[in-house]
C-alpha cells in the first residue's frame, strides 16, 4: 500500500459508533468509511469469475496480517490447493499464514452425486467444524465461500434455509465479521437462492462484464445498514498485489496549489504562460497528427531532467528506443537522462490491458519513479480500449493520482482532423493549462501553430504562434501578422522579405534626395560665388571711374583757373570770346 494515497472524506457513520472492520482492500475501506460492519455478516455476490472469492481471501489475509484478526475460510467450491494457488496469484501465501496460526482453511468437499437425504437433519456438523476452526486460532473473521452450494447439494431447501438463518445468528452471536459469497442469480436476483434476504447488514455486488471487447470489473454497494455509502459502480481490479477499488474522484479537489512556476522547456512558451506552468498542475497538449505533441512533451521532460528532477514518460504509441531516436532528431537527447537514472521511459500498448489494469500499472510506475514531471503520450490511445465515458474517468483518475502527488502532468491527446477540439473537451475541465497545436495549410505547405487555449491562474498570451522543430528542439517564432492574419512558413518569410525590401527602398530614396539636395546646395553656392565675383568686378569698375572722374575734375578746375586768368587778361584786352570757350568745357 502506498502511503501517499489520498484518503477521501470519511463518512460520519464511522464516528457515530457503527464499528467497522477494515478489509485492507485498497480503496474499499475509503469507500465504506472503514470497511465491513464489525461482527456482522456481509454478502458479496457476483457471477462466475467476478472476484468474490478473492475479496474474501484478501479480507482474511489482511485481517490476519495487518489488523491482528485471525480468520477462518470455509470453502465449499474449491480445494485447499486451488485456494492456495488462487491466493498466490494475489500475492498471498495461505499455507504460510495457516502455519503461523493466522488462518484456518477448511475446504468442505460436497459431492451431490454421493449424497442422499432422507428425513430430518440439521447442519450441526458444519457448525461444529466452524466452531472448532474459529476456536483453534481465535478467529475474528469468517468467510463462507460459496455457501449456496449447500442449497444445491442438500435437496431439502426448507431445512437448509432455516439452518442458514441459524448459522447467521450464530456468527453474529459470536461477533464474527463474516463475508458470505453468493452466486449471482437470474435477472433481478442478487443470489441464486435468495440468501440476500437473510443478510441485512451489508450487500456488495461484484460484476464482471465485457463491453466493447473490454472486460471490466465493477463493485457496487447495494446496501450498508447504518452507514452512508456511495451507490455508484466503482471499477475494481484483481492485481498481483490484491484487489483494488477505485473510488470515483471524491478524492479530487483537495490538493494544495503551488505558486511555483515550472518551465515547459520552451522559453518562448514559458513567456506566453508568464513564466511556465504551475508546479503540480496538469497540462494538456492536444493537436492533430504530426503537430509535435510528443516533441513538446519531451521538451518538458528534458527541461525537468536538466534541472535535476526525475521524470516519467509513458508512451502508448512508441517504444522507449523509438522515442529516444525520434527526439534525438530534433536535438532532444533523452537517452542521457535515462542513463543518468532521472528519466523512466515506459512504452505500453494501451490495448494490452483494460483501463483499470492500465491505471494500476501507472500508479505502480509513479510509486517506483517518484517523478516531478510525468508525461502520458497519448491518452487518445486509450479510446481504443474503452468507451468514451470510461476513458474520461480513467484519465481523470490518472490526473488525480498525479495531482495528489504534486506531479506536474503533461498529457497529450490526438485530435482527429475535422473533429475539432471536442475530443479533448471531455477532460478539459480537469486540465489547468491547455495548449492546442494545429496544422495550418496554405500556399502548398503545412505549418504548425500553437495556441494557449487556457491556463488557470495565469494571464497567458492570446497570441497564435508558429513553432518550428529545429535541430535544437522546439522554437516559437515571433508573430508576423499579414493582411490575412498570422502568417506562417513561406508566407511569413515573404512578408518578412517584403517588409525588409520596403524599408530598403525608403532608405535609398532618402539617400537620393539627400544627394540631390547636396548637389543643389553646391550649385547655389557656385551661383553665389559667381554673383559675388560679378559684383566685385562692378565695384572695381565703379571705383576706377570715380578716380578718373576726380582726375578730370581737377584738370578742369585747373583749366578753368587758367581760363579765368586768361579772361582777366582778356577783360583787360576786352572781348566776348572768352565766355564761349568757357561754356564748352
Amino acid at each position: 500500500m502506498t502511503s501517499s494515497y489520498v484518503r477521501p472524506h470519511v463518512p460520519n457513520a464511522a464516528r457515530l459508533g457503527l464499528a467497522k472492520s477494515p478489509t485492507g482492500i485498497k480503496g474499499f475501506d475509503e469507500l465504506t468509511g472503514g470497511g465491513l460492519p464489525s461482527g456482522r455478516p456481509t454478502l458479496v455476490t457476483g457471477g462466475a469469475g467476478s472476484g468474490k472469492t478473492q475479496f474474501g481471501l484478501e479480507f482474511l489475509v489482511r485481517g490476519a496480517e495487518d489488523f491482528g484478526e485471525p480468520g477462518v475460510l470455509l470453502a465449499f467450491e474449491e480445494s485447499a490447493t486451488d485456494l492456495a494457488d488462487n491466493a498466490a496469484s494475489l500475492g498471498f501465501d495461505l499455507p504460510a499464514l495457516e502455519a503461523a496460526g493466522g488462518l484456518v482453511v477448511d475446504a468442505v468437499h460436497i459431492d451431490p452425486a454421493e449424497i442422499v437425504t432422507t428425513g430430518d437433519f440439521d447442519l450441526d456438523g458444519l457448525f461444529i467444524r466452524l466452531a472448532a476452526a474459529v476456536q483453534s486460532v481465535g478467529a475474528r473473521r469468517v468467510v463462507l465461500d460459496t455457501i449456496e452450494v449447500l442449497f444445491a447439494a442438500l435437496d431439502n431447501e426448507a431445512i437448509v434455509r432455516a439452518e442458514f438463518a441459524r448459522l447467521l445468528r450464530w456468527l453474529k452471536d459470536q461477533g464474527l465479521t463474516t463475508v458470505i459469497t453468493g452466486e449471482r442469480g437470474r435477472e433481478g436476483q442478487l443470489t441464486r437462492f435468495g440468501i440476500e434476504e437473510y443478510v441485512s447488514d451489508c450487500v456488495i455486488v461484484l460484476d464482471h462484464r465485457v463491453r466493447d471487447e473490454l472486460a471490466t470489473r465493477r463493485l457496487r454497494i447495494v446496501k450498508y445498514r447504518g452507514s452512508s455509502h456511495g451507490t455508484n459502480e466503482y471499477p475494481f481490479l484483481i492485481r498481483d498485489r490484491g484487489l483494488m477499488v477505485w473510488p470515483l474522484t471524491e478524492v479530487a479537489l483537495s490538493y494544495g496549489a503551488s505558486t511555483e512556476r515550472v518551465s515547459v522547456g520552451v522559453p518562448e512558451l514559458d513567456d506566453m504562460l508568464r513564466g511556465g506552468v504551475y508546479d503540480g498542475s496538469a497540462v494538456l497538449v492536444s493537436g492533430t497528427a504530426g503537430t509535435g505533441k510528443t516533441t513538446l512533451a519531451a521538451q518538458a521532460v528534458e527541461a525537468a531532467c536538466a534541472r535535476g528532477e526525475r521524470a516519467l514518460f509513458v508512451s502508448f504509441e512508441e517504444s522507449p528506443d523509438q522515442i529516444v531516436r525520434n527526439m534525438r532528431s530534433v536535438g532532444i537527447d533523452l537517452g542521457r537522462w535515462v542513463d543518468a537514472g532521472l528519466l523512466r521511459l515506459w512504452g505500453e500498448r494501451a490495448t494490452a490491458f483494460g483501463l483499470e489494469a492500465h491505471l494500476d500499472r501507472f500508479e505502480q510506475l509513479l510509486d517506483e519513479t517518484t517523478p516531478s514531471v510525468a508525461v502520458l503520450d497519448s491518452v487518445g490511445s486509450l479510446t481504443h480500449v474503452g468507451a468514451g465515458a470510461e476513458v474520461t474517468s480513467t484519465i481523470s483518475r490518472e490526473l488525480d493520482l498525479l495531482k495528489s502527488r504534486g506531479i506536474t502532468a503533461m498529457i497529450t491527446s490526438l485530435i482527429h482532423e475535422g473533429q475539432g477540439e471536442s475530443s479533448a473537451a471531455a477532460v478539459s475541465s480537469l486540465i489547468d493549462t491547455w495548449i492546442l497545436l494545429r496544422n495550418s495549410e496554405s500556399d502548398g505547405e503545412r505549418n504548425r501553430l500553437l495556441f494557449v487555449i487556457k491556463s488557470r491562474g495565469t494571464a497567458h498570451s492570446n497570441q497564435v504562434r508558429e513553432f518550428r522543430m529545429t535541430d535544437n528542439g522546439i522554437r516559437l517564432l515571433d508573430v508576423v501578422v499579414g493582411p490575412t492574419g498570422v502568417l506562417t512558413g513561406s508566407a511569413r518569410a515573404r512578408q518578412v522579405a517584403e517588409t525588409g525590401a520596403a524599408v530598403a527602398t525608403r532608405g535609398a530614396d532618402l539617400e537620393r534626395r539627400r544627394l540631390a539636395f547636396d548637389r543643389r546646395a553646391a550649385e547655389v553656392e557656385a551661383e553665389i560665388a559667381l554673383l559675388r565675383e560679378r559684383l566685385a568686378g562692378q565695384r572695381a569698375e565703379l571705383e576706377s571711374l570715380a578716380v578718373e572722374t576726380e582726375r578730370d575734375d581737377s584738370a578742369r578746375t585747373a583749366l578753368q583757373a587758367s581760363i579765368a586768368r586768361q579772361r582777366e587778361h582778356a577783360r583787360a584786352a576786352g572781348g566776348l570770346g572768352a565766355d564761349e570757350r568757357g561754356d564748352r568745357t
Partner: protein
Amino acid sequence: MTTDPGAPASPTDGTYHLRLYVAGQSPKSVRAVENLRRVCEEHLAGRYTIELVDLVEHPHLARGDEIIAVPTLVRKLPEPMRRIIGDLSDTEKVLVGLQLREDRSGP
C-alpha cells in the same frame, strides 16, 4: 457399481462398514440410530458394522469425513463411499443410498 452377494466384490466379503455421525443425544440422533439398526437387521443381517461418532465429543472428526449435516451415515465399505443425510426415516431412500435396493431387485 453394485454389490453381488453371491460373488463378493470386496476383500471384506461384502461386509458393510457403516459410520453414523450425530451431534449429542438429540431426538434426530436417537431416531437415526434406531432407524439404522432396523434397516441393517432387516437387509444386512450378519454382514455389517456400525460405528457411532458423536461430533460434540469429537469435533475434529467432522473434517475428516467431510461432515456438514447431522445425522450423516457414511458407507465406508464397500467402495465407493456413500453418504446418507437425515434421520434415515425413509427406509426406501436409505436402501437406495446404501445401494441395497438394486441388490434385492437383481438376479
